[in-house]
């Protein structure tokens, strides 16, 4: 990504335009860029700066007064137990979602890539949940998980596994695992699609050569598939990790962070601090702390992967 920027392009862009032809070319370039740049400057960069400013102010969401309060918001955020609980929950979300979700994704991609009939069918079905909205997914699983009339508990009963019945979303011990399971069901298709595309780009000659050498299935995966997929794995890792860390809708619709704070996640915490508690300054401080951590994480990941691909 940013690593793609060639140094020469950067150097050229810092040289001021000289001569009429140069100025005309620059105006033309700016003309083509103007819709994108104006919108990004207004609706992305300005609010980004405002968020930082707002984190040092106090605002109730309505009044025109937004007095500066120094570091007070940050102090209260660092003392806010719910916020730190939400950070822990989202870490669990990220770790489990990352390994289980991507494990399923790569397994299914290899499986689909190895069958002859039904490739398109399975690909279509596996990505299908990914095109739904969080609200749809939330409403369906709320019904499925319902403790009294929910189908999941009833199916367990029929299967003679009545002892495994749970109050899936209401029990403090079960709520987070249940929400994470829904999140994985919802999102694993994204990694799957990218892995499948990556697998289809691996030259078949590599496998033919391995077959001649009598390589076993696992050896082929370990020494051909896995290294050949490395670039896809890097990008899927980054994107799925960031998506899991930013989870909002799935939790909001299923449990709204409850019971207690057992499924609270930072984005939802920021949302409720602002729109339920009307503590916009606190919420802004949270979004700077959490958003800053996410930006750092992607920078680290991008640097590492850029260095690895250069090596």
């Amino acid at each position: 990504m940013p690593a793609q920027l060639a140094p020469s392009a950067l150097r050229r862009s810092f040289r001021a335009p000289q001569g009429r032809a140069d100025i005309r070319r620059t105006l033309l370039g700016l003309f083509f860029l103007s819709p994108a740049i104006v919108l990004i400057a207004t609706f992305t960069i300005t609010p980004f700066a405002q968020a930082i400013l707002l984190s040092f102010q106090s605002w109730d969401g309505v009044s025109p007064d937004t007095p500066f309060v120094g570091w007070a918001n940050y102090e209260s955020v660092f003392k806010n137990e719910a916020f730190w609980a939400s950070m822990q929950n989202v870490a669990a979300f990220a770790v489990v979602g990352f390994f289980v979700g991507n494990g399923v994704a790569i397994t299914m991609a290899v499986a689909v890539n190895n069958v002859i009939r039904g490739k398109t069918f399975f690909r279509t079905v596996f990505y299908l949940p990914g095109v739904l909205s969080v609200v749809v997914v939330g409403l369906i699983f709320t019904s499925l998980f319902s403790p009294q009339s929910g189908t999941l508990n009833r199916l367990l009963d029929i299967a003679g596994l009545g002892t495994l019945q749970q109050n899936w979303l209401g029990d403090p011990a079960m709520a987070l695992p249940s929400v994470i399971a829904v999140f994985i069901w919802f999102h694993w298709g994204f990694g799957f699609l990218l892995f499948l595309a990556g697998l289809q780009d691996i030259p078949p000659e590599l496998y033919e050569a391995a077959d001649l050498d009598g390589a076993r299935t696992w050896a082929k995966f370990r020494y051909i598939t896995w290294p050949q997929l490395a670039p896809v794995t890097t990008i899927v890792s980054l994107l799925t990790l960031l998506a899991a860390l930013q989870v909002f809708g799935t939790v909001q619709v299923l449990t709204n962070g409850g019971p207690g704070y057992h499924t609270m996640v930072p984005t939802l915490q920021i949302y409720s601090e602002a729109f339920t508690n009307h503590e916009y300054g606190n919420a802004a401080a949270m979004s700077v702390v959490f958003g800053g951590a996410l930006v750092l994480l992607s920078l680290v990941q991008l640097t590492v992967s850029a260095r690895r691909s250069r090596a």
Partner: protein
Amino acid sequence: MTVRSTELADHRNHIPIDAPSGDQVPVRRRRIRADRIGLYGLLVVAALLALFPLLWMVSGSLQSLDELLAGKSLLPLNPKWGNYVTAWVQGDLGMYLTNSITYTLGAVAGILVASSMAGYALARLDFWGKGIFTFIILAVMIIPAPAMFLAQYRLLTDLGLTNSRLGYVLILITSGIPMGTLIMRSFFASQPKDLEEAAALDGASAVRIFASVILPLAKPGLAAVAVIQGLAAWNEYLMALVLFDDNSLMPIQRGLTSFDSAETPQQQILLAATAISIVPVIVFYLLAQRHIVKGIGAGAIK
């Protein structure tokens, strides 16, 4: 072409070998067949897990409340199609779906205009500031939604654009521009330059060349951007939650949640409303699948 070659491969694998010509062959074939059965078994189980919640929703939406709560059967014995009519009317789904369609079309149109122009400039024009602007467009992609939505809400409050169709569409457009621009940039960079150069020699202006030579050839790139951003806009939830208080402006997701919470409909009606709400996106997905797969790949890898 790939289909043909895999069919051939399939055929080759199934040539019956009645008289084993060597000790290795039948053993090996049996192992391959067992592998294949295992593979299909795994895929079918995964497909059932992926589909079950959706099929269950459709089944539940056709039952009466008593049937659904008693849970005697997974299938509706006596399908109540009337649930769908009730859901459509009580849930005001026509209004919400119209809103969603408006927002999605507006967002996609805006994203296509802004990102094809920007992608063209970054791929083909040479000018002062190009490096900086490329960097900015890449950099804003890593600003996460949790760091933004609160401040975007505040900005739109200041501009008087909350509870406004325009405000919401502008936010949707802006969030789609960086990825759209990157996809279009790599698309334009992969195209031959001959036609543009010929048009330039004929004295056509840059804007004219862009509109009448470049864009018509850019349909595959535009399609990839349109489907991927269309899905994102259709399913957007966080900003819709933050920006709208007025029900008549809400997209379908908000409509479903407010149907769920405010009017406490019976469960089977809510399931019918949910089922109706996904019809457009499912139809779109099945029709535009190829583009979606390509678009997701392009968006993630480029």
